[in-house]
């Protein structure tokens, strides 16, 4: 080594080559192992775990929480590299106190949007909802829901409240467990350091094999509330690409749920 040479650069910069025949032989061996493992049935994961959900709504919710906890706990037991157990009932509890949600979203066409929802903490049901995403503005109240297509200056009106999603935001995990079960899906929990958020989060990977949807929910380890939701795979009508940021129990801007039909707009009543 030359005296002037930087020892760290020397070590970091050293490269090696591999024999391509051996590369292929090892890869074949590894792929064979994968094939063998695919034939073995998983003891800890799989849709069959959801079949034990009970019939009544109350027992359904209780069973869902128990199952989620059981799955998360078994995962933590299996995975020695994760931090101590994340208790999903903390998220369930934290979400039950949510009375309003503010979300920033990105859709599949990369349009940016914003949503507000007012929630009844007793029932978890949304009472009012506002979503402004790309060309579509939705305002939903208990009496009527407006869909305003800005590019066409058309307002579609439907009587009653049309919910923003298939799950109640403040009962997100409870409803999602049912949803996942109904769609033959999986929920997986693990803890990781998120490079984008620069902090540790609980990551929940949701897969719906029947619907072909797949998304990730990141949960704040301190507040126990979801921070964002990201679709990995989706189909038209299955929601936005990303909920970039979620805020809870924020003040809702006055008058945001008072929709006024724009001048000259075409009105379409939905039966």
């Amino acid at each position, binding site marked *: *080594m*030359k*005296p002037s040479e930087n*020892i*760290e650069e*020397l*070590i*970091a910069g*050293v*490269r*090696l*080559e*591999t*024999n391509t*025949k*051996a*590369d292929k*032989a*090892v*890869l074949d*061996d*590894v*792929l064979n*192992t*994968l*094939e*063998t*493992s*695919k034939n073995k049935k*998983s003891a*800890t*994961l799989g849709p069959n775990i959801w079949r034990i959900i009970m019939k009544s709504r109350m027992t359904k919710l209780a069973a869902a929480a128990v199952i989620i906890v059981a799955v998360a706990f078994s*995962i933590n037991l*299996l*995975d020695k*590299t*994760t931090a101590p157990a994340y208790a999903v009932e903390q998220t369930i509890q934290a979400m039950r106190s949510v009375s309003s949600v503010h979300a920033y979203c990105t859709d599949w066409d990369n349009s940016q949007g914003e949503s507000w929802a007012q929630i009844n903490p007793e029932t978890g049901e949304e009472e009012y909802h506002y979503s402004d995403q790309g060309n579509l503005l939705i305002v939903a109240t208990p009496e009527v829901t407006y869909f305003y297509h800005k590019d066409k200056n058309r307002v579609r009106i439907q009587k009653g409240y049309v919910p923003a999603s298939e799950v109640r935001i403040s009962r997100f995990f409870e409803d999602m467990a049912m949803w996942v079960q109904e769609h033959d899906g999986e929920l997986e929990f*693990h803890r*990781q*350091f*998120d*490079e984008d958020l620069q902090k540790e989060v609980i*990551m929940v*990977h949701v897969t719906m094999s029947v619907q072909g949807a*797949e998304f*990730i929910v990141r949960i704040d380890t301190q507040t126990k509330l979801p921070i964002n939701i990201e679709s*990995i795979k989706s189909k038209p009508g299955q929601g936005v690409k990303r909920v970039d940021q979620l805020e809870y129990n924020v003040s809702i801007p006055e008058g945001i749920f008072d929709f006024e039909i724009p001048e000259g707009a075409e009105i379409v009543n939905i039966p």
Partner: protein
Amino acid sequence: MFEDKLLIWKFRRGDADALRRIYAGYKDDLLRLATALLSRTSVAEDIVHDVFLDLAGSREKLRLGGNLKGYLTICVANRARNVNKTARIRKSVGLDEAQSAASSAKRPEQWIIYNERFRRLNEALDELPYEQREAIILHLHGSMTFKAVAGFQAVSINTAQSRYRYGLEKLRSILDSEAE
């Protein structure tokens, strides 16, 4: 990072192409890491081979986020440490040096093609206490922070940094004396 996450999820669902990509993307770095930690090429090759076999066989139990490289680095480092411990015990009781890792699979021929520079560097690394060698290699080849190295070695960050610094000084002195 995001690509790694997708790769992991696809792999967990048994996607062979995802596993091929993981293998192609990380095998060279892992072989370099294992060889730098152990010097003995055949043992290093077996360790990396075994790490990939374990990965393929335990996809459903795999729990990690996007940091696939970090996970594989730790797998290799753990096995290298075990082999090193076994070698020390065998030496202390007068037995032969450690046998290779668990792999019983045979490759057609040597996997790593050694170059002279790498060989000389590894000979020098072989003269360091294992803890110093490990701190240097995990930081420089495994891209681990000192905090992560300290966690892996179960010591304070200061100790991990000292091991790294003393190791580098000794390495420099060995390589400089060879050049004279």
